[in-house]
């Protein structure tokens, strides 16, 4: 295992401390328990947004703390959801009296820990609502699973919901908007290589030099099936077609197209995938109105990508375009 780390047990702590040192103008790192908030104080008078999950997906979530997006992020151990005490502390720190929304990716661990934290916060008089993100169409049979996973679509949810919270929407309105974004966003990913969790020291799965894993999540878990090494155009279709089908994209639709890198893929390859994905969207008569390309929801050094499509309307476009100032996403300010 070759990594730019010191002690595998200290990876999360050292990452978050370095992150805090790099962005003191935007964020503050709290320890014991560990969480990250905006550098400015709590969200006085407006709804606050807290998200979190296992580490190893950087810049998610801490990289999205800042004006117009999250108020706090709670990093767990690598690929392990954070614990209720961290989530409670973060929720307390940012609550400005108008309630707090927890944005949770749909994994049993995240759901259970946020659920426990939410109960504790409610008991202390903080109004907490949960927006559950489950955009991964690779999980087909949600009757027989823990339901669809939350993957790269989470960034879009955090950005759009964050803009609504920032402009002062009520907790009911923000929660409702969150569900609307979730209903309109779908993703699917593939891996060219596995990743290695520092404390495991071994790759998360084995993949031959000519195999691609289709339908992966973001925790280095194996996908649903393997295909041979195909050109980028064909691989892109494996992702885009199920996404567009599931979302029911038809002629006249406007979408945000997001090609996300898994951490170890060069940006150049993501643009090749984007080009093909945009063509496939156009073939359905839909328009790519907004786009995002980059490594935003990663699996350590995994090579691969995911494609996310969000169906837009005027409201979502306005909120997407609203100013945002976080370490990983910034415009308008």
């Amino acid at each position, binding site marked *: 295992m070759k990594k730019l780390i010191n002690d595998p047990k200290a990876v999360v702590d050292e990452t978050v401390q370095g992150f805090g040192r790099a962005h003191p103008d935007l964020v503050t790192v709290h320890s014991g328990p560990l969480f990250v908030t905006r550098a400015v104080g709590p969200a006085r008078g407006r709804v606050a947004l807290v998200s979190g999950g296992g580490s190893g997906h950087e810049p998610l979530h801490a990289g999205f703390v800042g004006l117009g997006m999250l108020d706090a992020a709670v990093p767990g151990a690598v690929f392990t959801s954070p614990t209720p005490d961290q989530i409670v502390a973060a929720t307390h720190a940012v609550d400005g009296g108008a309630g707090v929304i927890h944005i949770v990716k749909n994994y*049993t661990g995240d759901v*259970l820990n946020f659920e426990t934290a939410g109960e504790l916060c409610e008991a202390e008089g903080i109004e907490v609502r949960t927006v559950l993100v489950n955009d991964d169409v690779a999980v087909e049979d949600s009757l027989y699973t823990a339901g669809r996973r939350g993957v790269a679509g989470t960034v879009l949810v955090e950005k759009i919901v964050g803009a609504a919270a920032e402009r002062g929407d009520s907790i009911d309105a923000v929660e409702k908007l969150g569900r609307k974004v979730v209903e309109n966003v779908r993703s699917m990913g593939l891996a060219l290589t596995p990743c290695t969790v520092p404390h*495991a020291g071994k790759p998360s799965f084995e993949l031959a030099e000519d195999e691609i894993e289709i339908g992966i999540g973001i925790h*280095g878990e194996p996908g649903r099936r393997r295909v041979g090494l195909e050109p980028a155009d064909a691989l892109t279709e494996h992702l885009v077609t199920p996404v567009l089908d599931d979302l029911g994209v038809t002629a006249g639709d406007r979408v945000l197209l997001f090609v996300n890198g898994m951490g170890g893929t060069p940006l150049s390859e993501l643009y090749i995938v984007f080009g093909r994905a945009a063509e496939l969207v156009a073939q359905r008569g839909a328009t790519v109105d907004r786009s995002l390309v980059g490594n935003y929801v990663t699996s350590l050094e995994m090579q691969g990508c995911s494609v996310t499509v969000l169906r837009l309307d005027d409201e979502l476009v306005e909120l997407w375009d609203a100013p945002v100032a976080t370490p990983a996403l910034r415009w308008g300010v």
Partner: protein
Amino acid sequence: MTDLDAAWADRWLRECARVLAVHREELIDLDRAIGDGDHGENMDRGFQAVVDKLDDGPSESVAAALKVAAMMLMSKVGGAAGPLYGTAFLRASAAVGERESLDGPAVEAMLAAARDGIVARGKADPGDKTMVDAWSPAVVAAGRAADGEAAFAAAATAAEEGALATKPLVARKGRASYLGERSAGHLDPGAVSTSYILRAAVTAAVSEISAGGRP
């Protein structure tokens, strides 16, 4: 025959820590196969934190020891296993109540409470390829024994068999469920860690020498 009292409870938790440290890599590998490879790390970290807490001084009662375990697991494990085991130990602590030591029926009641807590949180049915598949047969087996030690011995053996029986199953809960058919052919890591935890209770009863933390 040893009393399953407060001192035993402390020994049990320390033995859990020792055994889970020993099996850390095995549990990581099981979880790599059908999950995300952290279960061994999570359990090791969690029970090491339990031991650190126990080092403050001996527990006053069985219930107190189990509550310490619940709180530490809840705040140090994370993932699915943290809230599930945390809830299990919290319910177990409540079920034990004021009892100074545990006889057979008390062990059965305690294990049943733990299992119910896990099911209440995780909503898994037997056969879903989760830790429930170790806890459920354990509760049934414990009900057939008279004294506490024998109840734990029967429970541990049943849990071990339950864990082995998860191998052919297709997972329907937790991370492994995303693999669909590909989850068959592997043991469920949480069921295996459950069997270690129950076996540790027997070891702690048989040997009065506290095992300590990490080997």
